[in-house]
């Protein structure tokens, strides 16, 4: 590699960031749509939410992680807004520190967005991961101020209050732990989830086995679900702008090119080595 090529190679990550910034500024092009054309997954989620009935009580296990939350955030916010539009009562609980930090930030954002505080309940952080989940099925500690009917209901009835569990999954704790620890202990209530793509191989079998009712596990399925929503006034609680597909496509192409380059170099090296071993 020449000195010039080496310098260019070192600048490549910066050039990528600049290219992503330019692509982020380019207006949306019609042929590039983030939403999956196959709306089956989104429809399954909508059907699961429709089946919850009037004013459902939903326990939100918020354990997203900082590394993947950028991917799920638009869908999580849209789903919270959707549930509030369905007159749901939401109780947030976290079993990881990162999840707690993100849940606090989202609750603060809902507060800024003037979401009805009577419909939101912060159950805080529960230590112990799996043991904490088991503890949650036995007793829920609630701290609240003033007359909070939903909080009193949760305090009195515990996990029996809830009509559904929504798991916002992350790398550390996701739907698997909820399905393993909570589902066998509380009987038949639906579990739905929003997870990053990286959890898809782990979550897919639970969907197939019926342990999870519905999962939005890829940005495309999340975008397809968001397209179906009509939130009216609660649109203010969703992400201000939709994720930009062009920079993601550009990044993926660069990733594939880097992979191809590494693979090509390896194959060429092997071929050269094999040729040099040939007699004569």
């Amino acid at each position, binding site marked *: 590699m020449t000195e010039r090529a080496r310098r260019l190679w*070192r*600048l490549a*990550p*910066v050039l990528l*960031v600049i290219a*992503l*910034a330019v692509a*982020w*500024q*380019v*207006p949306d092009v019609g042929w590039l749509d983030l939403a999956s054309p196959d709306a089956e997954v989104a429809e399954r989620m909508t059907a699961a939410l429709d089946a919850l009935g009037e004013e459902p009580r939903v326990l939100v296990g918020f354990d997203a992680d900082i*590394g*993947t939350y*950028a*991917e799920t*955030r638009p869908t999580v*916010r849209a789903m919270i807004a959707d549930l509030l539009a369905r007159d749901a009562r939401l109780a947030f609980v976290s079993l990881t*520190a990162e999840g*707690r930090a993100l849940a606090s*930030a989202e609750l603060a*954002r809902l507060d*800024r967005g003037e979401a009805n505080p009577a419909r939101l309940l912060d159950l*805080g*952080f529960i*230590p112990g*991961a*799996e*043991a904490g989940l*088991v503890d949650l099925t036995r007793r829920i*500690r609630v*701290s609240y101020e003033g007359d909070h009917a939903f909080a009193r209901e949760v305090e009195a009835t515990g996990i029996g209050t809830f009509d559904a569990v929504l798991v916002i999954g992350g790398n550390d704790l996701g739907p*698997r*732990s909820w*399905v*393993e*620890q909570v*589902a*066998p202990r509380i009987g038949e209530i639906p579990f739905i989830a929003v997870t*990053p*793509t*990286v959890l*898809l*191989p782990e979550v897919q*079998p*639970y969907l*197939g*086995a*019926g*342990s999870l009712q519905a999962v939005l596990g890829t*940005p495309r399925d999340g975008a397809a679900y968001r397209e179906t929503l009509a939130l009216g006034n609660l649109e203010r609680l969703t*992400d*201000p*702008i939709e*994720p*930009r597909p062009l*920079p*993601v496509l550009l*990044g*993926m192409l660069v*990733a594939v090119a880097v992979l191809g380059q590494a693979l090509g170099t390896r194959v060429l090296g092997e071929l050269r080595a094999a040729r040099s071993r040939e007699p004569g």
Partner: protein
Amino acid sequence: MSGFFGTSVADIAATWVAAIVTLIVFGSLLGERRAFGWTQHLLAGLATGFLALIALTEVIGPRLVAPIAADPSGRPELWVGLALVASAAAAPWLPRQISVIPVSVAIGALAAFALGGAVIGTLLPQIDAAIVRPGGSAAATIGGALAVVVTGLVLVGFLHGIPRGRVLTAAAGAGRWLLIGGIGGWLGFLILSRLILLVDRVGFLLGDWLGLVP
């Protein structure tokens, strides 16, 4: 745009701090390591501080100190827990037979919850779902059979230290390749997550910080 920050002075200051730190992290791509090191220390410090805050305000205070203070004799299990924590903290100065107790309890409880949950919540439902039933679709039958074959081959790939014939060796090799393929697919998913995080950070700088919304 992340939408995490509002329009108050504190939120604007937070946006600026986050933008500057993001730029410093991007600066490491150009070889600027010293400032990048500071940001790593800042992240570690913030994470530690946040963990300590959670431990104090959401665990130790309301779940340990408050119940004991309210009714010292009514919650004997908390005293036992406190004794275990104290013996773990004093492990360097205690006899090994005592200091291993809290660690053993923690590992045993963790393993019991994880193993019990895995069997009841995952293994049994998955086996049940994989069983081919009369009247099921051909696709479900093929899918179930493939799942059994792949699972079997990967499990054989983990067999070490036992005598193998030619067939078992070939099956183990196939199992390892399937495993590598699975890890490759998982890494592909991970790249997508991380790429979206990078695009989100770029969007944060352009949108939240500079206000250049397209």
